[in-house]
């Protein structure tokens, strides 16, 4: 890749007290790409995003955002980044139009009225522009927050769990919008818990307990995990999960409807583990899911968050 990365951070570390929340994280995102940022709750996703957009100063590490030094050019970076917080961050006692107008003023945008009107039009909220932002439903709030985050046409968009609690259709539309923005050259870093959303990203990064555990495209991450999986079908297959999970060679076993999904690092060992049940249940090899990979990664990561909690 000849183009300079939009985001390139190395060894990013943040400690709160004696707890390391983000531990030497490296992350590179190419321009116009959507990078999914995954990891369990409290794994350091939000903290990493905050460090990238200048809301937190890393204790260690370095990096460039849009070629600007992360540590010394925080203000210049802020001008070119759009950040959508996890919690609705606009003013609920201001109207939709007033919120957008405020953002436009803060970024000192030209043609303010026109930009706000266009954004309202795109949102489909032109007729409701005087409604208070706090009165909007969850899905609309999220769309408004996105419109506000991209009003100043940032080069990078950081989204912190943008679709939490939003219905499937709104989520689908949201992701269509993200892809449209990326097509126009915007670089997107989005944290999420949803596997289907991770699969919609160009690349993904998995972080647990502050440590980056996996990176790459979806097939790359699955392949790199070395996990193998079996699918068991038969009477009572789903009820064997707990029993099979305890056997050697089995990483995890989980019921999916009436069938059983078993996975582990070694196919032969997996076969041996399920052999006693093969009289009743038919096991066939299947593709490990992204979820398998992430749960596997999480279980093998050392949990340092328990120390203080």
């Amino acid at each position: 890749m000849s183009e300079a990365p939009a985001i390139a951070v190395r060894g990013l570390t943040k400690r709160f007290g004696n707890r390391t929340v983000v531990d030497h994280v490296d992350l590179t995102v190419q321009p116009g790409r959507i990078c999914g940022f995954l990891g369990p709750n409290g794994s350091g996703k939000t903290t990493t995003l905050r460090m990238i957009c200048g809301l937190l100063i890393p204790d260690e590490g370095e990096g460039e955002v849009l070629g600007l030094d992360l540590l010394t050019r925080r203000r210049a970076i802020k001008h070119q980044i759009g950040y959508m917080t996890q919690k609705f961050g606009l003013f609920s006692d201001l109207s939709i139009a007033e919120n957008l107008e405020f953002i436009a003023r803060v970024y000192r945008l030209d043609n303010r009225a026109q930009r706000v009107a266009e954004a309202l039009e795109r949102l489909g909220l032109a007729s409701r522009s005087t409604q208070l932002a706090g009165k909007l439903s969850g899905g609309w709030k999220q769309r408004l927050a996105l419109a506000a985050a991209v009003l100043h046409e940032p080069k990078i968009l950081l989204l912190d769990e943008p679709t939490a609690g939003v219905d499937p259709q709104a989520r689908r539309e949201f992701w269509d919008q993200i892809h449209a923005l990326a097509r126009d050259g915007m670089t997107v870093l989005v944290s999420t818990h949803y596997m289907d959303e991770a699969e919609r990203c160009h690349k993904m990064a998995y972080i647990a307990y502050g440590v980056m555990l996996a990176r790459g495209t979806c097939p790359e991450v699955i392949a790199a995990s070395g996990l193998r999986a079996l699918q068991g079908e038969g009477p009572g297959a789903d009820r064997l999960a707990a029993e099979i999970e305890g056997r050697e060679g089995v990483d995890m076993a989980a019921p999916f409807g009436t069938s059983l999904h078993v996975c582990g690092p070694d196919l032969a060992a997996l076969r041996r583990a399920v052999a006693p049940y093969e009289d009743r249940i038919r096991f066939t090899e299947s593709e490990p899911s992204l979820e398998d990979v992430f749960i596997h990664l999480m279980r093998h990561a050392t949990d340092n968050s328990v120390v203080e909690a």
Partner: protein
Amino acid sequence: MWERIGAMVFKELRQMVRDPGTIAMMLFFPIIQLVIFGVAINNDPRHLPLAVEANDHSAMTRAIVSGLRATSYFDVIELTGQHGEGERLIAEGTAQFVLTIPSDLSRDLVRGIRPQLLLTVDATDPASTGPAIAAVNEAVAQALARELRGPLAPRAQTPPPVDLVLHRSYNPEGITSHNTVPGLLAIILSMTMVALTAMSVTREEEQGTMENLLATPLRPIEVMVGKIVPYFLIGLVQVVVILAAALLLFKVPFVGSPVLLLAVTLVFTLVCLALGFTMSTLVSSQVQSMQASMFYLMPSILLSGFAFPYRGMPVPIQWLAEILPPTHYIRLVRGIMLKGWDLRLALPETGVLLGMLVLLTVIAVRRYRDTVG
């Protein structure tokens, strides 16, 4: 039913214990109130500064001075006899009373001419001076009764041997509202400016809008100034309303310079706003900032000299009052409005307020971060 109520009670108690602000309120408020009402407040203040301008250096004068000392009402300052010194001390507030003894006191007493003693009183706070004035009368009469013996004994009979002329400066009719209404300016500004600013910042944090603000190119100083300006304007409106009411409704005299009053009011308003902002960086919720403002407001009302005479409080409490910005502002307002303080007289208290402003601004700027967490 009782179990369910019990569950609620238990839950409330647990939550109460988790909230240090509420606990502090519940424990400290009664203690502070006990101290203030029990010890600090005294409507019959003693040890008031009284200057004696003695133009007659006789035994009579010495008897009067020692008599005044003996009352415990006064800390007597003896003047060198330079004319006009007494007025200056009263204007500055260094002395609350000036007793002028005429040069021919002894001669007139002997001749049976009732000499006039002039007692000038700083009557801005009429409530606190009443008992003290009575004490002067008493002390002078007793001192002279001791001195006027033998052939002069009849002089000590009625009518009293001297004529004590009372001159109430600044508030000749002794109208209480002339004292309290200017003080209200300080209290209302403290009440609204401090609490509103403190809450406006914590509200952003509580509602999660601060994170969004900080992610924009807004600088901390821009957020601070932007937040303060609207409240500053509200403060100015309040000042205009209170002053209009003071002048038109309560007919409070306005002897000094309106420009000077406006200037010190500006400084005081900024002190309040900076204090509110500093408070907001120390607390984490709107409820806490409300509680913090209460902690500030109560002593401000009770100790600043607004509700009770400053001189009536024990010295340690007076030190505490000196830390409170309203104490200084109230002196300035009363000084400028009632006593006609000019810039020179207003300078010391204004200097204190400016010092507080600088200190609070430095703390607020240092504590307010453009980062979260």
